[in-house]
């Protein structure tokens, strides 16, 4: 890469990394390596995030993530995790319908009730 390109990519870097070509080239190359790596890592990270969101959504209906997905598999519903997480955030009633279907498909889910939160007042 020539100097001009390097400085263009080094805009906004800190200290001498934006002004001196030797340091700027070093930092830009490292930055591009990170971006190459993280384009791949992004897929894993997003999947993890979607799973956390689905889990949060299903637990409001008393089902955990694993049992919910197992129920969907049994019913042959092939929505992916990205779509499920978006439904759980923006379309709560549709998501409830999915949870109900999953719960009926997998009877193990029925027994689970959301844990009661009781204060310390009971102990006294």
């Amino acid at each position, binding site marked *: 890469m020539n100097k001009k390109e390097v400085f263009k990519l080094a805009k906004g870097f800190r200290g001498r990394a934006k002004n001196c070509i030797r340091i700027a080239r070093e930092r830009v190359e490292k930055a591009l390596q990170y971006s190459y790596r993280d*384009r791949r890592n992004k897929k894993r990270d*997003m999947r993890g995030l979607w799973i956390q969101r689905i889990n949060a959504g299903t637990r409001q209906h008393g089902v955990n993530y694993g049992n919910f997905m197992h129920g969907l598999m049994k019913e042959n519903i*092939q929505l992916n995790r990205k*779509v499920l997480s978006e*439904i759980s955030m923006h379309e709560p*009633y*549709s998501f409830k*319908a999915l949870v109900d279907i999953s719960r009926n498909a997998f009877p193990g889910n029925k027994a689970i009730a959301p844990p009661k939160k009781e204060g310390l007042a009971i102990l006294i």
Partner: protein
Amino acid sequence: MASLSVCSSLTTTSTLSQNQKSAVPAFKTNLNFLSRSLSSLRLASPKQPLFVPNFSQTEAPSSLAESETEPITEFEPTVEIADEEPKREEVFAVVMVGSRQYIVFPGRFIYTQRLKGANVNDKITLNKVLLVGTKTSTYIGKPIVPNATVHAVVEEQKLDKKVIVFKYKKKKNYRRNIGHRQPITRIRITSITGYQDSPAVTLP
């Protein structure tokens, strides 16, 4: 990434459908392309609702492909949108395009993987509908909702932003600097039909 694409597909059909009324009779000479694409949109879904974005109010980057003529007729609609909001039909679908799933709403656009052989202004139907949600009921496909189709219009075939692919191996004097632009297609969803006969889950 993907969720980003859904959000960025919030667009301004509101301005578009307003423009149909004002633009089409006024400019008959130079606007052949524009009026044709708009009228085809309108024919495909006669009750095309005015769409007001839910999640964000940004109206800026939507109409890049509608050619440079659009800014001329863009001034009137903003006031009237609020009045006609209740006419909006509330339906969404989850549709599979190019082995990816998208949540689509009529009137918005999505960027998909390049659809080969499709030309601009082609009407396409997407058959792999995995879920349809309306205001009162949800149709859940196992794995697809029978007969449900999503109709869309190809708006633009273009290349995505450039990604710099920099490969580097330490101590081996190996550097590769390659630019890559992924071909993508922008399609605008016109309507969602055919889901009514399949079994539905009624919502409370």
